[in-house]
């Protein structure tokens, strides 16, 4: 039954957003702009310097574009989890539990925000620019890596989102905590990770596997040595890391839902 319901739910959400065309257009443009502002920051910094952490402007743009596209896709599907604290506080989470469907997919389909496509569009635009301007020794494997990187990145971000929002089952105002990790890791992964201080890098690059969204795949594509000393094959492991992150997220989510107690009414 479920396979028939989800397309219908998603379709209804999409139609409802397209009903107010002007409002949708403004939202869409805001998202394109939001992504462009991050681009402007990179361009402003590179108007002052030639390299950041040993990476040229176009190389940083490649990382920024991978991160932006992956985050946009993750936001499209997992961004709705930001509403979880409201569901829990108001008790409407009980309604989700009562329905004969899995809870996580229900939340993910509850509000597919099409305007996020604005973010993805501008990121893909920058990606095309960067890929044609950085020196890459193309091979079939590298083409596959280029296609897989944003997908793996989106899975990693989504997993981060699920784990971070699971905190909300224990902390009522957990949303801001979660934002530090979700939106924070988007900001983090847009730059080469060797610019960050060691503690920040440990948390945001390896505990939260942000380094595998854009940094290591970009190194592999560019054929560059990691200034932090990890071997070259690490750049090819992002899909594995994504699968692992998704597995961990699934376990954490189940654990969290099992410990949910309704607030009563």
């Amino acid at each position: 039954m479920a396979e028939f319901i989800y397309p219908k739910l998603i379709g209804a959400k999409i139609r409802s957003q397209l009903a107010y065309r002007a409002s949708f257009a403004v939202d869409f443009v805001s998202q394109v702009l939001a992504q462009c502002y991050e681009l402007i920051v990179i361009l402003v910094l590179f108007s002052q310097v030639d390299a950041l952490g040993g990476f040229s402007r176009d190389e940083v743009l490649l990382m920024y574009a991978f991160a932006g596209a992956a985050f946009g896709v993750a936001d499209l599907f997992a961004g709705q989890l930001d509403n979880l604290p409201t569901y829990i506080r108001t008790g409407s989470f009980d309604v989700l539990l009562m329905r004969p469907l899995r809870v996580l997919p229900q939340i993910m389909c509850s509000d597919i925000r099409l305007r996020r496509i604005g973010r993805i569009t501008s990121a893909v635009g920058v990606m095309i620019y960067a890929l044609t301007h950085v020196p890459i020794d193309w091979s079939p494997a590298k083409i596959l890596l280029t296609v897989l990187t944003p997908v793996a990145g989106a899975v990693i971000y989504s997993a981060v989102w699920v784990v971070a929002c699971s905190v909300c089952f224990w902390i009522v105002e957990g949303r801001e905590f979660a934002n530090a990790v979700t939106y924070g890791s988007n900001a983090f992964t847009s730059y080469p990770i060797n610019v960050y201080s060691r503690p920040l890098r440990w948390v945001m690059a390896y505990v939260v596997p942000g380094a595998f969204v854009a940094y290591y795949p970009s190194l592999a594509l560019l054929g560059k040595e990691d200034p932090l000393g990890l071997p070259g094959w690490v750049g090819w492991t992002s899909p594995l890391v994504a699968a692992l992150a998704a597995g961990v997220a699934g376990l954490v989510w189940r654990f969290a839902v099992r410990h949910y107690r309704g607030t009563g009414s």
Partner: protein
Amino acid sequence: MLAGATTNVVFGLLRLAIISAAVTAAHGEIADYDIAATNTYVWIGQGLLGFVLLWGNNELAERVRSGDVVVDLYRPWHLQGALLAQDVGRGGYALLTRLAPPMVFGMLLFPFQFPENPARWPLFLLSATIALVISFGVRFLVELSAFWLLDNRGLYGFWNVSSGLLCGLTVPIAFFPEWARNALWASPFPALLQAPIDVFLGHGNVVKLLLYQAFWAAAILAIGHFALQRAVRKVVVQGG
């Protein structure tokens, strides 16, 4: 509270790392920003963000949409003045809970550029307070647009994504190319964040900065006043 502070610190650390990396790559200084000035800039910025309340909650606009605003307009007060008084009161509390903590955090953990002249401290507070008034004025205008747009969430979102860059939160305005710098300083936006930070760091002329802020505070409050007058004429109360 704690959650908000964590987020604030995480974003501060991220911004700090990136700008510091650029400053280091430029042999220790970009446009009067060395490492200590960069640290100071970032942590004052993270504090001012909550003090001037760059991103509001769009509450007035929601009241316009729902019609509850009629109750606000009934009351024997000037709506803009009353809300401004409320916001300044909020600022008094935010001074201790939002502005001071990130600044102290920056002072304790990183090289910090303290003002050479102690008179800079009260001047910084004055500048930050004017910034709060301008921030209120801009938010008031954005919310007031709901009288014409009914659904102002597009404009509200637009302000939320744009303000960080325009006000000098994400990257110091001094880093921009000259034409962009001139354009920004001709607008009210740097008055919200960059101006108080410049007063603290001793970048530019203090008197000029304060006059620039005072001009925009007066201008934006005046525009808000007239916009409110126009908006009230559109209000129709149906029934009781």
